[in-house]
C-alpha cells in the first residue's frame, strides 16, 4: 500500500526534465515575443514614404509576416507528421500533425486579421482578392475541413490514417492554389486609391525593419514550437483518458 502512494507522488525523472525543458522554451518564447512587440512598435523606424494612420498601421506588417511564417511552418509540420505516421504508425506523430494543423489555423487567422487591419487604413478596404490572401483563405478552409473530418471518425487508428491521407492532399494543393491565385488577376490589375494591392511592398526595407522581421520570424517559430509541444502533450493525455474510459465500460 505504501509503495503505491510513493509512486503516485513522485514523477519519473524523464517527465520532470522534459517539463523543465518546455518551461524554458516557453520563457524564451515569451521573451522573444515581448522583444518583437517592442521592436515593432518602438525600435523599427517608421516607413518614410507613408504618413499618419498608414504609417502607424504599417507596423502590423511584422506581426503579419511573423504569423504567416509560423503558419507555413505549422502546416509543413503537419505534412511531416502525417507522412511519418503513415510510415511508422506511431500515434504520437498523428498528434503532432493534428496539433500543428490547429496552431496553423490560429496563426493563419491572425495573419488574415492583421492583414485586414493593415489594409483598411492603407487601401480603404478589408478584403482584396490578393493572391496571398486568397491562398491563405482557401488553405485555412482546407485545414479546418481536416479538423472537421477528424471529428467525424470514431476509431482512433482510422482517424489517424484517414486524416494523414487527407493532409497529404491538402498540402499538395497549396502551391497549385497559390499559383492559380497569382495568375487569376494578373491581366486586369485593380487599382485602389492609387496603390496596387498586388504589389509586393510599397516601401523600402530599412535595417531596423529587417532586424525586426528576423525577431518576428524567430519569435513565431518559437511560439509554434511551444504551442506544439503543449498541445501534443494534451492530445496524448486525452487519448490516455479515452482509452481508460473505454476499458472501464
Amino acid at each position, binding site marked *: 500500500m505504501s509503495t503505491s502512494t510513493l509512486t503516485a507522488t513522485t514523477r519519473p525523472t524523464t517527465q520532470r526534465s522534459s517539463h523543465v525543458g518546455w518551461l524554458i522554451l516557453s520563457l524564451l518564447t515569451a521573451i522573444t515575443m515581448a522583444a518583437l512587440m517592442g521592436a515593432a512598435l518602438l525600435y523599427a523606424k517608421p516607413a518614410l514614404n507613408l504618413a499618419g494612420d498608414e504609417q502607424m498601421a504599417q507596423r502590423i506588417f511584422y506581426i503579419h509576416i511573423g504569423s504567416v511564417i509560423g503558419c507555413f511552418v505549422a502546416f509543413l509540420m503537419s505534412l511531416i507528421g502525417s507522412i511519418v505516421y503513415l510510415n511508422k504508425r506511431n500515434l504520437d506523430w498523428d498528434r503532432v500533425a493534428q496539433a500543428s494543423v490547429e496552431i496553423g489555423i490560429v496563426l493563419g487567422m491572425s495573419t488574415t486579421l492583421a492583414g485586414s487591419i493593415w489594409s483598411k487604413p492603407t487601401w480603404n478596404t478589408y478584403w482584396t482578392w490578393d493572391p496571398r490572401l486568397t491562398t491563405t483563405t482557401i488553405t485555412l478552409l482546407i485545414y479546418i475541413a481536416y479538423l472537421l473530418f477528424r471529428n467525424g471518425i470514431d476509431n482512433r487508428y482510422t482517424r489517424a490514417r484517414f486524416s494523414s491521407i487527407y493532409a497529404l492532399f491538402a498540402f*499538395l494543393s497549396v502551391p*497549385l*492554389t497559390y499559383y492559380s491565385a497569382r*495568375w487569376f488577376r494578373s491581366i486586369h490589375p485593380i487599382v485602389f486609391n492609387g496603390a496596387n494591392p498586388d504589389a509586393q511592398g510599397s516601401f523600402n526595407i530599412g535595417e531596423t525593419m529587417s532586424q525586426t522581421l528576423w525577431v518576428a520570424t524567430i519569435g513565431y517559430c518559437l511560439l509554434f514550437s511551444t504551442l506544439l509541444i503543449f498541445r501534443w502533450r494534451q492530445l496524448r493525455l486525452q487519448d490516455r483518458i479515452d482509452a481508460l474510459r473505454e476499458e472501464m465500460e
Partner: protein
Amino acid sequence: MSVSLPASSPVEATAELGVVQPLATSPVIMHTGSGFGRYWRKVWLIMAKDLRIELRAKEILVVMIAFSALAVIIFGLAFDLRVPRATMVVPGVLWGILLFSGILGLNRSFSAEQDHQTLLALLLAPIDRTALYLGKFLANLLFMLLMAVVLLPMLLFIFDVNLFRFWILAAILLGSIGYVAVGTLFAALTASIRARESMMPILLLPVMAPVFMAGIKVAEQVLDGRDWTDFQNWLGMLVAFDLIFLTAAFLLFDLIWEEM
C-alpha cells in the same frame, strides 16, 4: 498459368423437397497470377458493373442532371437584367454547377457499396485495390462528362452563350479528370464516417480551387476571343493538377482499406 482445382465430389441429395441438389462435377478452372491485361480487364469489369447498376437504379445521373437544371434556372434568375453581358457570368456559373453537382454523383460512388457491404466482397476478391480505384474513377468520370454534355445546352438555352468551343471542352475534360480523381478517393475516405454526405463537399471543394480558377479563366478567355497561347498556363495548371493528384490518389488508395 492455369490451375484446375479439384471438382467437388458429388454427394447424393436427400429426397426431401426443397433441399439442395448435388453440386455437380464441374471443374473450376481458375487462372492464377496477374498481369497487365488481367489488371485492366478487372478495371473494366468494375466500371462496367457500376454503369450497369446505374442504368437500372438511375440514382446518380438523373440526380446530377436534375440538380444542374435547377441550378441553371436559379442562376439565370439571379443574374437576369442585372448583368450587362451574360458572358461575364457564364464561366463562373458553368464551373460552379459542375463542382456542386459533381458532389452528388461522387457521394453515391461508395455509399451504396458501403450500405450493402458489397465493398467487402470486392476487398476479398483477388484484385489490386488500385484496380478498384481506377474502375470507380472511370465510371465517375463518365457520369461527370455526361452531365456536362447536358449542362452545356442548358446554359446555351438560358444564357444564350455558346460554350461548345474546343478549348472550353478540353478544360472541362481535364478539370473533370482532376475532380473525379480526388473525388473518388475522398468518397472512399468518407464512405464509412457519419455525416458523410456533408463531409464530402467540405473536403473536396477547397482542394479543387486551382481547377475551378483554371476552368473559369479558360472559359473567359475563349469567350473573349483569345488565342490558346494566352491561356496555355492555365491548361498547364490543369494538366499538372491531374498528374499530381491522380498519382497521389493511386498511391494512397491502398491505405484506406487496411481495416474493414
